[in-house]
Each structure stands twice: as C-alpha cells, then as structure tokens.
C-alpha cells in the first residue's frame, strides 16, 4: 500500500465532491479502525464495519452473493452514507451532504474515481 497515493485518493474524492464531503475513513474489514481518513470519526468506522458485517450475514443467509460494490444509506438531516467495498477486504465509508451534491455525480463520477485511486494506491 502506497500511503502517499492513499492520501491522494482522499483528495481526489474531496475534489470531485466539491465541498459536499463531510468525512470519510478507509479501513480493513474486521478491524474497525481507519488507516486513512478525512475528518475521521473512529466511532463511525467501528459502526459501519459492523453494519457491513450484518448486511453480508443477512445476504449470505438468504442465498444472495455478498456485497460487491457499495451500499448507500439516505439518512435524516440530509446525510448520505456510502460504504465502498474495496479489494483485499478494505472499505471506504464516506458521509456526504446531499444538499451539496447530486446522486448522479456521487455514484457515477466520485465513487468510480475514488475506487480507481484506491486501486492505484493499493498496487503501490
């Protein structure tokens, strides 16, 4: 993992979301602790690690494949949480202000580019 590129991948996300990104963290599944972030929230990292685990267990029990790409929660008070499922069991959770960015830009530009930047950082 190239740490410098990992931090740059967060900058890519911030730039693409143009002020709408409130916080984000990247962590390894099962650890619940971040390896990089912006306005990091350790509680959120631990929480969404658990939420992902619960979702995967529910999917598995019901015979569906596990989460592959991402999940999105639309929260009260205009918050959007997106949790990307990355390679080698990494996850990238982000809290976005839905009044400052539209869903199309978030899902079709910011998320794919963030994933690409992470992959580059991972390859070193």
């Amino acid at each position: 993992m190239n740490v410098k590129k990992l931090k740059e991948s967060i900058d890519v996300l911030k730039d693409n979301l143009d002020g709408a990104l409130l916080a984000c963290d990247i962590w390894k599944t099962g650890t619940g602790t971040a390896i990089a972030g912006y306005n990091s929230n350790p509680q959120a990292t631990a929480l969404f690690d658990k939420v992902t685990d619960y979702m995967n267990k529910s999917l598995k029990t019901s015979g569906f494949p596990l989460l592959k790409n991402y999940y999105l929660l639309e929260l009260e008070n205009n918050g959007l949480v997106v949790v990307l499922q990355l390679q080698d069991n990494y996850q990238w959770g982000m809290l976005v202000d839905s009044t400052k960015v539209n869903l199309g830009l978030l899902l079709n530009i910011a998320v794919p580019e963030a994933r690409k930047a992470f992959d580059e950082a991972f390859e070193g």
Partner: protein
Amino acid sequence: MNMWDFLYGNDRKKKAKKSKKQIKLKKEDLPKKTLVLKKEHTKELLTKSKKTDLSVQKETLKPKDPVKPVEKPIASSQKTMQDVKDLPILKSIIEMLKEELQEAYSASFFLTSEYNILLNDHIDLNKAKSLGLIVPQTNTYLSTFNFDTINQYLFLVIDDDNILFIIKLKDYDLYLVLNQKFLNLGYLINILLPKIKNEINIKN
C-alpha cells in the same frame, strides 16, 4: 429436481396451502441449514414469472444481533387488522412497480412495523426473513452510536446484476430486488418513491 423445487423446496405445495393463512412458524420448523448460492444461481433464486399471484404470508422475525437486538413489539390484533386493511394498497403498489420498472423488477416483500413479512413476491419466505431485519437492525446500530437514522431509503449493490433497494414507508419497509442493468435509479428515487409515499398517504 426441477427449478421450482430448487427455489421453494419439495414441500412447496404444503407451504402454499399454509400461506393462505397467517403462519407463525416455530423454531424447529425453520431450516437448519441455508443453501448458499453462488452468483450464477442468483437469477434462479428469483422466480422468473411476473404473473405469480402475490401470496399473503406472514412470518414473525426474530432479532439476531447480540449487541443490541431489535426489540420485537407485542403483536396486537388491532395492528393485524391494519395490515389486512392495507393489503389492497400494498398490492397495488407492487403492481404499479412491476409495470413501471418492467425488466428491472425481480422480487419484493413488505416488512411490517411488527416485523412480519407481507406479500413476498418471487422470493422465498425464509430468504425474505433473512433480509427483512436489515433496516431495523441498521437503525439500531445508528441510534446506538448517536447517528442519524435512515430517512427514506437505502440500497445495497450486491453484484453486477442485483440491487437490494429498501424504501421506508409509514408502517412498512418495502424491500425490492432489482436488476440494475435495466434500472434507472433516478426514476426510482425521484419519481416512483414519492408516488409510492403519496399513494399510501392518500389511501390512509
């Protein structure tokens, strides 16, 4: 074994008879093992025909998470009557979604505020049960950590084809399995979701 048996088990005919009534399964009735399907089996998991009648089945769910389990309210007959009263509205919503979403629609069911499954369509009752606690359990986690809870919807992209899209309604959570290759997400969120909410509000 034919596909129908694969999806619903060999005893589906017995279950189909039971499903016309309200069923409360005992613990020992539940399958001890769940068949884990690979990606290529996912399509087979969901029945293909869109003509199947919407069966009225009810199953009380049990919380699974040991950290802070979702509390199951005591069932009241008044609420059951409400469920029955709402059935035509809920059915009409599913029919509307099938018509609007066309090939993007794969399966659906409703979860009541009493954690019962209603109108499971093209998805086996036990499989719906496993998915059905995602919203209440996620909300429990969020509120435990003092985060805002889910407002109108959430969705999970589970593979290249399938999205599990969940809409929070007044007294129900609507779970939809959708094929994202045919889905216009903006149309679902900005047009259909308000339409569904409006329909429920007007008829209530």
